């Protein structure tokens, strides 16, 4: 069994995260239309709901995983010099990790 995210796994990650993001966005929009929060405290209270918090956290995890696989594929396709490719992948990984930390901080502060 392969342990790295290559080939079939990467392909699967991209499809599963896409389906999850689509469902999340549809539910999010449905909520925004049916029961829109009219003030910041109402919005905050809705997001504080642990189910919504977890679903939002998973959404951003899916988004970042999806972006990692997708952009990595573009880099593998077009950037052939190894040094440049490693630099770009590191940059991408660092950027996505920073975004993950930022999302976690926001969700954490909401509850803290």
């Amino acid at each position, binding site marked *: 069994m392969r342990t790295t995210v290559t080939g079939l796994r*990467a*392909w699967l990650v991209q499809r599963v995260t896409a389906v999850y993001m689509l469902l999340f966005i549809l539910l999010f929009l449905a909520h925004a239309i049916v029961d829109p929060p009219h003030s910041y405290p109402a919005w905050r209270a809705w997001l504080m709901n642990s189910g919504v918090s977890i679903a939002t956290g998973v959404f951003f995890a899916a988004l970042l995983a999806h972006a990692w696989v997708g952009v990595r594929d573009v880099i593998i396709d*077009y950037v052939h010099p190894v040094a440049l490719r490693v630099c770009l992948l590191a940059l991408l990984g660092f950027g996505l990790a920073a975004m993950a930390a930022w999302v976690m901080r926001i969700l954490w502060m909401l509850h803290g």
Partner: protein
Amino acid sequence: MRFSIFRYNPERDEKPYMQAFEVDLEPTDRMLLDAILRIKDTRDDSLTLRKSCREGVCGSDAMNINGRNGLACVTPLRELREPVELRPLPSFPVIRDLVVDMTQFFKQYHSIKPYLVNDEDPPEKERPQSPQERDKLDGSYECILCACCTSQCPSSWWNPDKFVGPAGLIQAYRFIVDSRDRATQERLDDLNDPYRLFRCRTIMNCTEVCPKGLSPSRAIERIRLKMLKVDGDDGGMELHRVPPIR
């Protein structure tokens, strides 16, 4: 009829160029290959191309016709926009005029082990197959390896040495679904890396240009499902209508 044909003779020309030809056709000149041979016969006998069966079976006269890959011998002449622009298969190294180097293409083809792997004792007569098992090969065994698909596939353009390409992959599928083959799992494992199969971005140029109406993109999708061990449809694949080149 007017033609603009890619010319390059490495012994004489510094750079490739397009050469214009105007040729009077005979009523019997129905396919593009007839016209090319007419040009070779009456205008310039140094024009170089591959051809053999002249009926879409051998796959040797694949070329880029008005921007689309196809077989000159089965491309109706009168529907073509003038001047008819003929170029060698895109992305393949040119040897001379319309003749390209297919070494890389066949290297990828051989890498998928295009033969039955079966170590069981050979039966006295043959390895029988039920009509249903035989039907599974429909839509993939018809590939004539003309390279129209691989040469028009952007994923093959970027990584021709690592991505097997649509022609190799539809051949791989043909052996994966063959009931007489015993190496199915090895074949799937061999393709499960970042390059060999998964460079495919489902652009589907391969299916669009296949002169035999095959669908390499569907074969690739089915290989992915087999890797996932999803019981998808693995019956024969239907042929599609080949859109005429204009």
